[in-house]
């Protein structure tokens, strides 16, 4: 495959697709080109960190996971066949590391409420409320308070609920892939996802209600 000149961010003047840039950088990194690998790291580190942060919550743990993930990628580049996009492969690696981390931590946790909502336990008639909180598409974080409310809501989710939500909403993983990553059935994934979303919806609705009350007073 002919190579195009790339700058530090892995961009060329012809603006190729991000996946093509990744593929080219991967090809160079497989030959031992550390600069190419550095470009891959810099292109993806923030998104990978967002995934790690969403799964493990603690920023220091998330940083460690991101480093570990990229080291694993470096060691395994020779086996990467390019059947999936590089970022998909990378996000799976950091997700699996995050889930392994949660498993270790979970041994110390006395109670995890996701166990209550694990299997196919969605009550008959239970549904996502047919109402939005009125956040603007693409501008959910218009106010600092909204960002804090979303973060608080995420923090109150159990590890399992938060992990599936992040895998789905940030990584776009399929039910099948999430089930494989978490070692459970697709039904369990759907149940966790449903309950996580219900809790997030309730928290957002509560936040909007409080904000409206503040404005009204």
């Amino acid at each position, binding site marked *: 495959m002919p190579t195009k000149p790339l700058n530090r961010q892995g961009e060329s003047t012809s603006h190729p697709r991000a996946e093509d840039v990744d593929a080219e950088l991967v090809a160079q990194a*497989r*030959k*031992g080109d*550390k600069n190419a*690998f550095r470009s891959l*790291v*810099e292109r993806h*580190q*923030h*998104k990978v*960190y*967002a*995934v790690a*942060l*969403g799964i493990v919550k603690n920023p220091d743990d998330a*940083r460690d996971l*991101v*480093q570990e993930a*990229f*080291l*694993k990628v*470096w*060691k*395994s580049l*020779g*086996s*990467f066949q390019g*059947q*999936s996009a590089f970022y998909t*492969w990378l996000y*799976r*690696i950091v997700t*699996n590391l995050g889930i392994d981390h949660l498993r270790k931590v979970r041994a110390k946790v006395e109670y995890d409420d996701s166990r209550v909502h694990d299997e196919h336990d969605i009550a008959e008639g*239970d*549904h*996502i*409320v*047919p109402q*939005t*909180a009125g*956040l603007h*598409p*693409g501008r*959910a*974080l218009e106010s600092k308070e*909204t*960002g804090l409310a*979303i973060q608080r809501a995420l923090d109150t989710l159990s590890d399992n609920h938060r992990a599936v939500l*992040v895998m*789905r*909403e*940030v990584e*776009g993983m*399929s*039910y099948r892939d999430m089930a494989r990553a978490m070692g459970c059935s697709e039904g369990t994934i*759907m149940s966790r*996802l449903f309950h996580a979303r219900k809790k*997030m*919806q309730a928290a*957002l609705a509560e936040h909007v209600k409080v904000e409206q009350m503040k404005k009204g007073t």
Partner: protein
Amino acid sequence: MATREEIMKLHDGELSEAEAQRVRASLSAEDRLRLEALREIGDAVREQLEARAGASKLDVWAGISDRLDAEPAAVVPLRRRRSIWIASGVAVLAAAATAMALMVGPHRPLDGVTIESVDFGESAGMLFQIHDTKTTVLWQTTNEEEQE
């Protein structure tokens, strides 16, 4: 009116094109609001995590660049082949290394061999590194193998 499961699967892209078309055609006004609520929740989660990550001063490269030299720069991918002698050779090596790992403990350097689990995204596997010969062997479990 669509079911709860259909709405979730439609939102998450888990339906075939034909199924998605059928469900879209059956959506009530309430169902559409539920879909909109699901989109809103997804946007909120994604935007918050990405904003938080973006606000962090992150320099992963500084943390890993020194460690790359200690890692194998190039590995020999050993995928499943029809040649039985290769499969047999790797199987013997894997069995020996696994036995050593069981005796001494996982993920520790063992008398010249380091064993580590590796995630390949679509599949998982083990990495055996023989220090004396600087040989690295990757044992990858493919989907095809898992189904067998």
